């Protein structure tokens, strides 16, 4: 479903993703793990047509995201690392907007929006503006939104960040069900290793832009002779805390927060 060969992305002199190769089969749940700044989000952006690779080959559902952009875009849904909802629109309008952009016919759209909003328990707040939602509610809405067009692949970039265990288990059980029943491929990143261990069938660990290890969680544990995925992760990537450079957008986000409070 996803095939990546010798993928490299440079920003000037900085090599964010360095000669990375991996593949994900149809219906598989794949965890892409790595410390901050390892190149996870950059890789996702290249897989989802937002960035062009410097070199290397990518196939997402058999197509090249750099060439057949629209076919690739139709095939996946995504929940971004940072919020991507329109605060000034209601929950329903955000869903509707997405449905129209993806060309989901009206009747099907209405039915799916209702079903998904009910599932994430936001149906009774569908007409409230998103800016009044809590972080967890926004996250749930984003997950629901990413599923409206029934994607073949679902990308989740730290989807459960800041969610309580109830919401997390609720969301994961639904995603697992979709992956089982509809053969939906799931590609996700997370910092919660126990989550990756429990949910992912296959794992790749990326560090400093390079793949440090890949395989099933038990293969990784065997390889590093550790008892949990968390320990193998630390064994693979070391214990040093990573620094991530703040880009202008991050700075603005900080300023916006100050402005709001």
């Amino acid at each position, binding site marked *: 479903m996803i095939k990546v060969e010798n993928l490299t992305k440079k920003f000037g002199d900085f090599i964010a993703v360095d000669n990375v190769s991996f593949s994900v089969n149809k219906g598989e749940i794949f965890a892409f793990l790595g410390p901050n700044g390892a190149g996870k989000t950059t890789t996702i*952006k290249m897989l*989802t*047509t*937002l*960035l*062009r690779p410097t070199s290397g080959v990518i196939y997402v559902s058999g197509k090249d995201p750099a060439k057949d*952009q*629209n*076919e690739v*875009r*139709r095939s*996946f849904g*995504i929940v*971004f690392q*940072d*919020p*991507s*909802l*329109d*605060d*000034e*629109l209601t929950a329903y*309008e955000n869903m*509707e*907007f*997405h449905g*129209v*952009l*993806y*060309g989901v016919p009206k009747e099907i759209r209405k039915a799916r929006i209702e079903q998904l909003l009910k599932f994430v328990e936001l149906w009774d707040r569908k007409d409230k*503006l998103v800016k009044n939602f809590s972080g967890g509610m926004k996250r749930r809405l984003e997950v629901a939104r990413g599923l409206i067009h029934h994607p073949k692949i679902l990308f989740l970039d730290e989807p459960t960040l800041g969610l309580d265990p109830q919401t997390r288990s609720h969301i994961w059980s639904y995603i697992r069900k979709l992956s089982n029943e509809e053969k939906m491929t799931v590609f996700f990143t997370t910092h919660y290793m126990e989550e990756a261990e429990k949910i992912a069938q296959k794992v790749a660990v990326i560090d400093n832009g390079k793949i440090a290890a890949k395989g099933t969680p038990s293969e990784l544990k065997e390889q590093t002779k550790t008892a949990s995925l968390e320990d193998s992760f630390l064994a693979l990537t070391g214990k040093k805390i990573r620094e991530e450079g703040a880009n*202008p*957008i991050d*700075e*603005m*986000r900080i300023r*916006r927060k100050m402005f709001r409070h």
Partner: protein
Amino acid sequence: MKVIYILWLRQIKRYYRAKSRIIGSIAQPLLFLLAFGFGFGPIFQKGGGGNYIQFLVPGIIAMGILFTAVFSGIEIIWDKQFGFLKETLVAPVSRLKIMIGRTLGGGTVAVIQGVIILAVSLFVGFHLPGPHMIILSLIFMALIAFLFAALGTVIASLLEDMQGFQLIMNFLLMPLFFLSGALFPLQGLPRVFTIIASMDPLFYGIEGLRGTLVSGLHLGLFHDFLILSAITAILFVIGSYLFSKIEI
């Protein structure tokens, strides 16, 4: 078509939900109208310029449209920061449609803004022309609006964040506004100014508005219409090219 419509609708909804922004963006032109209108009115009349309010109102309408339209384009930067742009950019929709939908939405909002200012100006003594001239003036309002909404898109595609915005405001928008003849007639100014003014698209917009709202039809209006349409078309092309190059 549906895609352009939903993007347009989003801009309209965002507009009417931000009540404080509506008031804010009408208050500033209104302040100009009152301060300049009553402040310079007597001198203008003595200088033989006639009724200053009649002269000023088209300029103030254009001012309101100019700022609203450019800001609507610049909103792309906000969408970039707050992530919503990513949602539209990963959708299986051409960038051109996204850009058209947004620009039409922002332009429509700016026209509404212009109409509100026109309505309010009646209370400070502006005399309306006949209905067919009002309709013609709407065409010019729309042209100014789409032209500057497209310019806003161009600017937003080039800027990384809002840091550069102050520069754009002081070195592009304010000069465009002052040199357009919105506040004072450009006749009799040093030649340098009239040459620069003739390169200012807002100058033609204001000529068009003055012609339709105040002084009546004349051949120059068609000329203004053509120039505005041409510049709008060019900015659309540049804007959609730059917009399609946005990477986040």
